[in-house]
């Protein structure tokens, strides 16, 4: 198996069949894929069969949607057990999920809802990230989310908040550059100032995507348009500081023709190749001292993985 590195694409049902058909094509700018485990767990039929075919060609990383790390309900044990089995099956080198609440008081929003940036939430998230990591055999990375309303009692800024969570949980960061751009735009902040406070040494993967201008001063993080130039520039700026971290294009709807989608991957690949080599593997409890995240298998040795905390994920409908 080759390593998750370079530029990847978030797998969606809308183009899964086409990608299977193209899996014999060279496609040098597409080196890995990311899937939402929830879309394939406990499931048979067309899409899991397609996933199996694609795994013969590309390595996969996994990106969850439903762990609800910020939620007040207990973590879902059955979900985590099923997830662990799936991650082992696809041999994902890490698993990412969001710093958000999606399920609370027994109700599931199926959205990534933001929370107050404060010390209480940092402590809450750290405890739950460790719980989740302990139940998985795969290192966990957490993703910064976009937020549209400033929750009450926020007394940290976003960069300090994310940095505190990652440091105290000793976990990896799945840095969504587009989310930083969206938040900076919507809340009148400087995106680079936010990124400067992020723990860039912990970044294991980055996301980029397009978004929608609902109002002149309000962006929705819709993933339904092409990446805009300011996000490319922000990615280039970030890659210059992180080195060559795997970069993933997310496109959830209004999927363009394959040639147009691939053209975005080619542009991202050029940015990635222009970035400096990464000095060392990202820091985390799961990866400590191993350098294993960039090894050939992309997975931690079992003993070290068990020593790690645990984490996880997100999904689509057919």
């Amino acid at each position, binding site marked *: 198996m080759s390593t998750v590195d370079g530029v990847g694409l978030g797998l969606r049902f809308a183009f899964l069949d086409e990608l299977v058909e193209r899996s014999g094509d060279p496609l040098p700018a597409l080196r890995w894929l990311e899937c939402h485990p929830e879309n394939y767990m406990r499931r*048979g039929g067309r899409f899991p069969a397609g996933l199996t075919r694609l795994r013969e060609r590309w390595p996969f990383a996994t990106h969850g949607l439903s762990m609800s790390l910020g939620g007040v309900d207990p973590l879902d044990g059955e979900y985590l057990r099923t997830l662990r089995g799936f991650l082992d099956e696809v041999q994902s080198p890490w698993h990412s999920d969001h710093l958000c609440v999606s399920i609370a008081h027994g109700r599931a929003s199926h959205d990534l809802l933001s929370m107050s940036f404060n010390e209480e939430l940092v402590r809450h998230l750290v405890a739950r990230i460790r719980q989740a990591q302990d139940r998985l055999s795969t290192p966990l990375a957490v993703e910064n989310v976009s937020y549209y309303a400033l929750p009450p009692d926020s007394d940290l800024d976003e960069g300090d908040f994310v940095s505190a969570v990652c440091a105290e949980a000793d976990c990896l960061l799945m840095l969504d550059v587009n989310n930083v751009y969206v938040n900076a735009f919507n809340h009148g902040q400087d995106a680079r100032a936010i990124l400067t406070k992020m723990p860039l040494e912990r970044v294991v993967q980055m996301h980029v995507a397009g978004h929608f201008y609902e109002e002149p001063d309000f962006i929705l993080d819709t993933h339904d348009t092409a990446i805009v130039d300011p996000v490319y520039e922000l990615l280039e700026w970030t890659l210059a500081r992180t080195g060559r971290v795997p970069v993933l294009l997310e496109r959830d709807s209004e999927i363009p023709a394959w040639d147009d989608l691939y053209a975005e991957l080619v542009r991202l690949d050029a940015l990635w190749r222009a970035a400096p080599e990464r000095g060392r593997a990202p820091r985390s409890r799961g990866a400590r001292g191993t350098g294993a995240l960039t090894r050939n298998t992309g997975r931690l040795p079992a003993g070290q993985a068990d020593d790690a905390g645990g984490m996880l994920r997100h999904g689509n409908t057919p």
Partner: protein
Amino acid sequence: MNLETYQHNLFSLLFGTDPEASVAALSNPRGRPDRWRRYRQMVRDRLEEVAENSFPRLREALGETWPAAVARWLSEAPPRSPYLRDVHGEFARWAEGALPDFKGAAPWSGELARYEWALLDTSYAAEEQAARDVDPAAGAFAMGRPAVLTPAHRLLRLQWSVHRAQVGYDLSAIVRESCALCVYRDPVSHDVRVLELGAFAAALLEGIARGPERALLEVFREAAEASDQSIDVELVESFAELVADLMDRGVWLGSSTAAARGVR
């Protein structure tokens, strides 16, 4: 506002019937209240879209009352599962119970929801375990062993012919008519197909589904009795043809590796 209170207010905003009270509770002096309203709209639009795309016949049948039905669903039985595709089943279970009493809904609306959910549920079903349960050396059917059916099938007993309603077609095709259906997934194309079952076939498949540890012979006899048929050469030949047909369709997988209950 602590985490518990914040999340209570947030989810009341999303699913409650008095969103403005939640907006007031959540608003920060530095923020904009309309952004909280946008969260409610986003979540509800997404869930409504999931229901609309997955229940196109029901959407058509409910017509102008559809938005009110969805709003009532979200307030009475909001989604609970972490899997988005489970929203379909959650909606269908609510619809089957609530729609017969819903103003403007046809009496077959609940059955239509159940039927459309069966189409989806069948397309999702995982079948790996069943394949491991089949003894290839036992042949297509060993009467002393339990039969194994694919998990990618659903059996429905309906009082209305809701399966005759196609998307975009005249819903008057739905008439009061008892029927038994086998909804199954083609193992090669993964397409979902629907079979109308005769009385014996329905009783046989239901008997197998009800007691996966029972010998096929026991289920066969019970099905003959339930469908008021005597066990003769004609029935045995029909049974063999039925099994062959179901095997071609990937519904009937074979005989179980396990012995039937009470059989040594």
